[in-house]
């Protein structure tokens, strides 16, 4: 689509200047946290101020070597990777079923699989807490993995559905004409063509799980905290200076994902 035409508040008019100033105030407001945590992460352990008044890598050393922050980070990585793989295994075939399927009630299948997006996360968190408590798996890694798989699968389905609409169906038809079954067509033709969408979906699922805090806060126990839960507790109770280093690293991770996602959109 073309940009909205120039005449509306052409450059230099008071209205245009007001618009530009407000928009850039908005951009700066949005970027402020990402901007300040990076310099702060090179500050010292005594003062949590921005701008920092000294330069050191002390906080990173604390994060990597001197504390139990790494335990939380590894737990988050393990949960995010496992749940992303599970979400792909469940979500991609489900998206195929929704886009290509011809069975009755398909609409409701799609609605049901998307419904975790619509329910307030706190309600899901409480539900899982009560359920896992009755099963005795509160605070376990497998509980976290299942919970995050449930949380991310709808998003994998959405990205896969979008990807499938761009996969040329005549290629699938050609495969079946030449005698391939539904399964063979799916694995040999559709999946390879769906790779970019699957990669994008996996990337988002990973980051969503890695950053997810409300569910993890409810179903993790104090001995096994994911990184976001540890951060939540730290902000609430002590404000550990190490938070600055963690935040800076997470900002870099988000930036990485954004750039990767943007480069993918360009390709497809």
């Amino acid at each position, binding site marked *: 689509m073309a*940009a*909205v035409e120039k*005449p*509306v*508040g*052409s450059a230099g*008019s008071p*209205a*245009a200047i007001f618009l*530009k100033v407000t*928009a850039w*105030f908005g951009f700066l*407001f*949005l970027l402020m*946290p*990402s901007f*300040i*945590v990076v310099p702060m992460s090179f500050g010292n352990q005594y003062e949590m*101020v921005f701008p920092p008044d000294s330069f050191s890598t002390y906080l990173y050393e604390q994060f990597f070597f001197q504390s139990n922050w790494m335990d939380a980070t590894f737990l988050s990585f393990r949960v995010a990777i496992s749940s992303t793989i599970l979400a792909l295994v*469940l*979500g991609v075939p*489900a998206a195929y*079923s929704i886009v*290509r*399927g011809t069975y009755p009630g398909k609409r409701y*299948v799609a609605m049901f*699989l998307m*419904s975790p*997006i619509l*329910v*307030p996360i*706190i*309600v899901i968190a*409480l*539900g*899982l807490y*009560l359920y896992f408590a009755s099963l005795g798996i509160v605070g376990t890694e497998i509980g976290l993995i299942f919970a995050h*798989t449930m949380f991310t*699968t709808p998003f994998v389905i959405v990205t896969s559905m979008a990807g499938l*609409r761009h996969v040329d*169906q005549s290629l699938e038809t050609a495969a*079946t004409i030449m005698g391939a079954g*539904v399964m063979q067509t*799916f694995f040999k033709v559709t999946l390879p063509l769906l790779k970019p969408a699957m990669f994008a979906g996996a990337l988002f699922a990973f*980051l969503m799980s890695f*950053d997810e*805090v*409300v569910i993890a806060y*409810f179903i993790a126990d104090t001995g096994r905290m994911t990184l976001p839960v540890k*951060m*939540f507790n730290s*902000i*609430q109770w002590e404000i550990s200076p190490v938070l*600055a280093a963690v935040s800076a690293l*997470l*900002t870099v991770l*988000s*930036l990485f994902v*954004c750039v990767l996602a*943007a480069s993918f959109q360009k390709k497809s």
Partner: protein
Amino acid sequence: MLEARQMRITILFGLPALVFMAIIFLYPILGVFNQSLHTIDGLFTWEGYVELWGSRLFSKVLLNTFEISFEATVLTLLLAYPIAYYLAKQEPRARAFLMVLILLPFWTSILVKSFAFTVVLGEHGTINSLITLLPGIDRGPKMLFNRMGVMIGLTHFFIPFMVFPILTSLLAQNPDLAKAAQLMGSGPVRIFTRITLPLSMPGVMAGSLLVFIISLGFFITPALLGGRKDLMMANLVDFYTRETLNWTLASSISVILLVLSLFLIFLLSRVPGGKSVLGEGN
């Protein structure tokens, strides 16, 4: 096309996800309904809802939740509309670059944001240090652990959710309309108020409802940036679940929150522009 009969088999492709969601999503949600009607010992009771009906704490929190959600939605709209409008006016290449400035905060952990705000807004934080540099002022306003902190945190979180639908409805407009109005002698302000703004209302409506719905169930920001007076429904759920172990009350509040949200989502699916926000591309 694959044969229709053959394609029926594809229901099997959806089966694993359906079973998984039934166990890890539907069953726990039904469990919340069930728990809201039972005591912790498993006896049937209406007591949860009855107690909430008469509870001053709950009515205060309910009022808070609506008040905060409404204020945050308005504040978000006031900032997000100019951003979306500014983006819509850019050439596609410049817009693609500026979109990164929206996407990066969108994908940034809410805990990074909350941490940054505790540093910037605190009593001896960046903003207050700057303010006290001014002559005659030795104390800045309190911006943390009160309503203001919650508002700043929520607005920050919500802006991307509002920018996307508004931008979509701005870009969908036919640029010839504005050009025609200009040729017929309309000034920029008139073109904006008579053409651009009305035509972007679907995006505004969809974005506002979306933000309001997300806000109703918000937990992190009021917990970290708000004070005791800024508790929202989600914080009360947490309080009853972990502090007092009153699962019946926690579940009753959750059910009320869920019903409210679903009702608003139903409304959202009815407003023009709401479908795309809900991602029902079908």
